[in-house]
């Protein structure tokens, strides 16, 4: 399906190994301004899946494939919804509680496509972009077995 704008969507994929500030990321990405934008910011919880205090979350990825998958998922989602631009910023490495882990932003001509594309892309990347989380608590690391419920 061709984008409603008739032009190729702008896709930005970033995998920082250091903390990032989502609002600073967005400010740099919002050019030109679109009529509608949808955003999602995910942060690391202060507790593990079993409720223990979390020291840090470790994010492993598959260099090369992770970027390629995110690019393909974002391009397909933008095409389905006629979005004009997509930004995915996803942390890798060691992340502390409260730090941003993922930012998804979509620019479109209307709120419906912008919000729907954000929600779809977030679910798709959680299941189809190769990332693996390990929770560190009490000096012990535990690989996370699955995603949290929607």
């Amino acid at each position, binding site marked *: 399906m061709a984008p409603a704008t008739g032009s190729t969507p702008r896709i930005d994929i970033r995998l920082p190994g250091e903390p990032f500030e989502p609002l600073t990321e967005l400010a740099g990405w919002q050019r030109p301004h679109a009529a509608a934008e949808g955003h999602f910011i*995910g942060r690391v919880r202060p507790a593990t899946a079993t409720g223990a205090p979390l020291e840090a979350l470790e*994010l*492993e*990825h*598959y260099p*090369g*494939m992770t970027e*390629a*998958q995110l690019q393909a998922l974002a391009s397909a989602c933008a095409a389905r919804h006629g979005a004009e631009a997509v930004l995915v910023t*996803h942390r890798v490495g060691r992340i502390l509680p409260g730090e941003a*882990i*993922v930012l998804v932003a979509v620019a479109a001509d209307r709120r419906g496509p912008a919000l729907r594309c954000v929600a779809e892309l*977030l679910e798709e*990347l*959680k*299941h*189809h*972009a*190769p*990332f*693996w*989380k*390990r929770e560190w608590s009490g000096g012990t690391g535990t*690989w*996370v*077995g*699955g*995603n949290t419920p929607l």
Partner: protein
Amino acid sequence: MNSQGATVAAKVHVRLFAALRERAGWAERSLSFPSGGVEQTPAGLWRQLGLDPSPPAETGHLPAGIRVAVNHAFAAPDTPLAPGDEVAFLPPITGG
């Protein structure tokens, strides 16, 4: 003897990630590609490398939740491999 490039290409490169890597105790290996027209597949490599502590009776299948990538794209466990391919075994994905 082939050129150096052909010698390097006559391998298949295997990568493991996260919990799979730690269970196996290694992250990457290069294996010689079988000669004589023998078909090589990711499922065959999985068995050959002994990656499953309790292999299923049925061949050609991987344990539930384990996915395969060939050259950075998801692929079926029975995908025929070519010399020089990079095969990755991926435990359940937990991003976002």
